[in-house]
């Protein structure tokens, strides 16, 4: 692989850009791999990347039924933050944030990480208390966040109506290190890194069955034939229950649709990420100038990547009251993704009832921000067979033992 650099750009400019090579190979599957990762989204590719980089395991295939980064990695609102209430959450999300901070250098691929700052608006008395509590918890965890008063909120986001009759802004939790990154580039950068280590990324290859012998995984059946493996990592977000069913166990997960939409591009108007959890809405401005808006999930099981219209309507209606200047913007596109929701709204990074099958799922509505940390923790679990300190609290056994990492109450719905 040729490194990307200023000199490479100059060299290619001098020869009509004829020398750029493909960022990753598209090989046919081999007969056997030490590790198969199912799902070439951000989490799956990051798992494979850190398996190679940190643990030296490179006989790895990442198989994907669609195209690389085409699921939730390409459908989220690209928000990155680590201001979680519970200690295990703060640890893994802050690990992810720290990895994001120099991910572009690490991958030699510009993921356009933009730590522009992130605000969570308090619009009710309960939220004031909740976010102040989170700030105190974050300070104890070593995660820098602070509480700011309405005047400072208005200063940071001039287009915000802080005195609205229905949704007044009473203050906000600010994480200055939070922000956004280019979601596709995260998947592409990891894919390029994996391919460069000799790993095979096999797209358009759907897993149709999981083969086990004596309670131990031996391989998978796919639309490109059977592939043997030593270990199997299931990192498929919305389809986790489908893969678990093939392997013969059930997960505490329900798959639901979550939607996002973008406006027509406008000039720069908002240079932080704003989350308004009271109304289930969050908004930031992309580099193209579009306002990127996310809403809440539907309440029923769904695999169609289409959500219910009324969520778009409710969120937009509330955001128009909070940001009056967006009222005349046209919305350009709307889409949905299938998120894997757990009861405590925390992820699962765990061993499973089948030996050598590991799952990384349950990231629900907030997986993008966690990609590097999730991959790091999952790679450690797959390589060693036992969870490391980051993943230890996120095992499946927490449901049996009643050790929930309850972010559903702590964070509201929008993660």
């Amino acid at each position: 692989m040729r490194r990307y650099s200023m000199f490479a750009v100059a060299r290619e400019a001098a020869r009509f850009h004829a020398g750029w090579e493909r960022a990753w190979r598209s090989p046919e599957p081999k007969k056997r791999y030490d590790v198969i990762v199912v799902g070439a989204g951000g989490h799956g590719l990051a798992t494979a990347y850190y398996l190679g980089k940190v643990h030296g395991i490179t006989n790895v295939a990442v198989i994907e039924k669609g195209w690389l980064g085409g699921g939730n990695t390409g459908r989220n609102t690209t928000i990155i933050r680590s201001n979680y209430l519970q200690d295990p959450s703060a640890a893994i999300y802050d690990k992810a944030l720290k990895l994001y901070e120099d991910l572009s250098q690490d991958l030699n691929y510009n993921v356009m990480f933009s730590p522009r700052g992130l605000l969570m608006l308090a619009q009710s008395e309960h939220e004031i208390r909740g976010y102040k509590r989170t700030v105190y918890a974050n300070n104890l965890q070593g995660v820098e966040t602070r509480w700011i008063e309405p005047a400072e909120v208005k200063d940071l986001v001039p287009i915000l109506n802080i005195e609205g009759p229905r949704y007044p802004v009473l203050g906000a939790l600010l994480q200055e290190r939070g922000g956004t990154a280019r979601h596709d580039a995260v998947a592409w950068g990891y894919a390029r890194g994996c391919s460069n280590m000799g790993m095979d990324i096999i797209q358009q290859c759907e897993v149709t069955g999981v083969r086990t012998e004596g309670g131990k995984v031996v391989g998978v059946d796919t639309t490109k034939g059977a592939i043997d493996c030593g270990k199997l990592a299931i990192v498929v977000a919305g389809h986790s229950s489908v893969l678990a069913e093939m392997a013969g166990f059930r997960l505490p997960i329900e798959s639901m649709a979550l939607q996002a939409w973008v406006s027509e591009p406008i000039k720069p108007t908002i240079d932080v990420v704003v989350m308004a959890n009271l109304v289930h809405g969050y908004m930031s401005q992309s580099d193209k100038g579009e306002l990127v808006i996310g809403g809440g999930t539907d309440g029923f099981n769904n695999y169609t990547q289409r959500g219910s219209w009324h969520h778009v309507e409710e969120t937009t209606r509330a955001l128009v009251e909070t940001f009056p200047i967006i009222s005349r913007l046209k919305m350009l596109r709307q889409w949905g993704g299938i998120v894997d929701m757990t009861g405590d709204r925390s992820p699962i990074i765990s061993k499973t009832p089948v030996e050598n099958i590991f799952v990384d799922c349950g990231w629900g509505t907030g997986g993008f921000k966690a990609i590097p940390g999730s991959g790091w923790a999952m790679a450690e679990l797959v390589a060693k067979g036992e969870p490391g300190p980051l993943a230890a609290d996120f095992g499946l056994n927490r449901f049996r033992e009643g050790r929930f990492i309850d972010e559903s109450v702590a964070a509201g719905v929008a993660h």
Partner: protein
Amino acid sequence: MLTLQCPYCGVTVEETELAPGGEAHLKRFGPGSSDDDFEAYMFARKNPKGVHFERWRHAYGCGKWFLAARCTATLEVFGTYPAQTTEPPADLIAKIKEKRPTWEGYK
């Protein structure tokens, strides 16, 4: 937009009038049951891609719980029925099998 017929009122309503309630026909395990049974009852879910039986409440209508058979891969609704039953009615199962010949049946 999802529309379901309330089996009590007989009216067809859209989802903003309804509250979803998750998987139907869960077998309840309480105190004295094994850890496995209790954990499965509380947390493990089928979450199928395809035919799914689920609970809904006609929240802004009669307020009663009812059950629905729906395809999670297409959003097609096969039918609804009152909640006072431990398994789906036979005629509904026959109707689903007709529409989904490869469906392995209710289990």
